[in-house]
């Protein structure tokens, strides 16, 4: 992208700011009457800086996708604010949102379902230019498609193919090219590599990192795969049942996890260096409670190995404890950093 460099914001400035976000779904009550709000995201503060990667990790159902969908405007939040650059999305009008859409794109988990299977690769990539007229004159579409394809390391002969003729990895590249077509400043990746096989996953991860280097694009990268997160994250936020329980740089979170949940997660994650019979003491029992009926106090207390009485009554605040910028939401995070090692 020849003009891309000019539009890259200075690395490190806050690009996306999420404050007190509550979002979720209205479901019918048990009786079938009335509506009940389920806060799948229950008060989240996050900031993504230009040119950086913020990873959100957490188990299934903890609200990662809900967060992502709120950010890109697929879901109207119940409360809180999301601002992108200098635009407050919650109060922005249609036109403003439309303009922001160019800077804020998304790559979904499953490329087969998130791209219209009836379209050709070129049309998939070019769709953004039809939606945002004036971004690129129609005459230049073909050339730009070729350029984007080569950017995601696909041969330009793919332009005329239909998606079902492509492999999963190739499809995901197309998906990335489509997101890049509007030269966004931020790409939200919701489990963008989770459906891929190991070797292909490596290719796509490399691509994402390369693109960040070249184009300065920031990522809000959502994943449940700790290995992947550790590999590409600048910052990490660990999510549990709709809230952020720990937040810090990748090094801080992985090397010195402060929240018992993070620690459990790390020890549960399989690694090729594990061996049979290896013990993982802190493996959690039980499963994530439903966001429709979250536990009182600390949401993690029902599975927490170190829960105490206070946890049932007081909601722990996400506070910086110890190192700069390394925050955790645990009543005992400050006192007992040693348990993490």
């Amino acid at each position, binding site marked *: 992208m020849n003009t891309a460099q000019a539009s890259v914001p200075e690395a490190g400035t806050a690009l996306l700011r999420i404050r007190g976000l509550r979002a979720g779904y209205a479901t019918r009550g048990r009786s079938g009457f009335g509506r009940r709000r389920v806060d799948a995201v229950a008060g989240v503060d996050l900031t993504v800086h230009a040119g950086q990667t913020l990873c959100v990790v957490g188990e299934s159902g903890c609200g990662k996708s809900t967060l992502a969908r709120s950010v890109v405007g697929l879901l109207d939040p119940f409360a809180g604010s999301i601002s992108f650059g200098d635009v407050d999305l919650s109060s922005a009008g249609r036109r403003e949102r439309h303009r922001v859409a160019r800077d804020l794109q998304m790559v979904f988990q499953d490329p087969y379902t998130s791209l219209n299977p009836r379209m050709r690769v070129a049309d998939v990539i070019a769709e953004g230019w039809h939606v945002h007229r004036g971004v690129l004159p129609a005459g230049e579409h073909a050339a730009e498609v070729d350029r984007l394809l080569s950017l995601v390391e696909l041969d330009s002969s793919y332009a005329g193919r239909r998606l079902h003729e492509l492999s999963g990895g190739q499809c995901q590249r197309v998906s990335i090219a489509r997101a890049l077509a509007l030269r966004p400043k931020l790409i939200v990746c919701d489990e963008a590599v989770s459906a891929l096989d190991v070797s292909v996953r490596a290719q796509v991860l490399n691509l994402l990192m390369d693109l960040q280097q070249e184009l300065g694009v920031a990522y809000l990268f959502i994943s449940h795969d700790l290995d992947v997160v550790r590999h590409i994250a600048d910052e990490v936020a660990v999510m549990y049942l709709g809230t952020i329980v720990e937040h810090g740089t990748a090094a801080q979170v992985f090397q010195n996890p402060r929240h018992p949940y993070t620690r459990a997660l790390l020890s549960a994650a*399989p690694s090729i260096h*594990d*061996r049979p019979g290896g013990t993982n003491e802190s493996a959690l029992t039980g*499963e994530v409670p439903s966001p429709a009926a979250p536990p009182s106090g600390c949401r993690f207390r029902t599975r927490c190995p170190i829960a105490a009485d206070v946890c049932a009554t007081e909601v722990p605040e996400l506070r910086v404890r110890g190192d700069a910028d390394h925050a955790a939401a645990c009543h005992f995070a400050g006192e007992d950093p040693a348990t993490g090692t």
Partner: protein
Amino acid sequence: MSSTVEEVAGATEATPVARLRGVHIGFGAPGRERPVVRGVELDLVPGRVTALVGESGSGKSLTTLALMGLLPGGARVSAGSVEIDGHDTAGFTDAQWRRLRGPKIAMVFQDPMAALNPSFTVGWQVAETFRRHQGVSHRTARARTIELMRTVGIPDAEHKYHSYPHEFSGGMRQRAMIAMALALEPEVLLADEPTTALDVTVQAQILRLLTTRQAEARMAMLLVSHDLGVVARVAQHVAVMYAGRIVEAGTLDEVYTTPAHPYTRGLLDAMPDPGRPGRLVPIEGQPPAPGHLPAGCAFAPRCRFATEVCRTDDPATLPVPGRGTSTGHVAACHHSARILGTEPEARS
């Protein structure tokens, strides 16, 4: 950890309960079939967990199903033999197979939601195993089921007996599947990606459950997975599958620390590793579509070690050079020796 290794060492001599010998599986009419699994050799030995790893579509599930005699319609074993307790199962009748499934060999499937019948209670489905094989009354079957459900860690089993699968969480469903498989204390347990659909914390629980049970009953277990981490955590033996062939097999340590096949090597390199930040080293290209295998070694087009011979001759599965034949570390590569001598590619 050390105890299991010793067990394994002792068990190498033990006779396998189930084994696959040069098994070929193909789809389509005899003669014109599309080969999907090609010459698989696999021994399932009591007390040992063998893992089958490989990318999606490499033929892992079909191999497993062949052991159960449950190949999908259209697929059949076109060559080689599936042996259980030393008997070739080729001529088995339905009734013979039925007697084996459950008491001798049992299976845990990948997607527990789909693998459970949505219209019956979980308890009923587990109890059915008892009723079919032991001819016991509903009441007895129920008592045994509840007991069993407790052992696999389903809390409040009495009550949960009457729940339907959709009322269970993913982890609980998988526990129910495991209960069903373990009901008759089979000698062979097949687990096809038993934790793929689950979260890490739950995955850890399920893996622990499986390995404990396996070790207690000294079952022969085949674990199918594409997750090298999971395999590392539970298996003593590993077989790596690529395009329908087992390209490398051996003990976990042999395969993971000194891979002799470029594909195994590629897989390991492609894993993000905290020790090696920066760009990952992917295997370029894609696996061949079944039925469109290249001549020679199926991996050759993606292999950076490939030479002329690789494009013409499909390598035989041979003991890895430099190790005693007794270790059982085998690989199907013309260049195993060269690969063993090369350092992993450095990361940028």
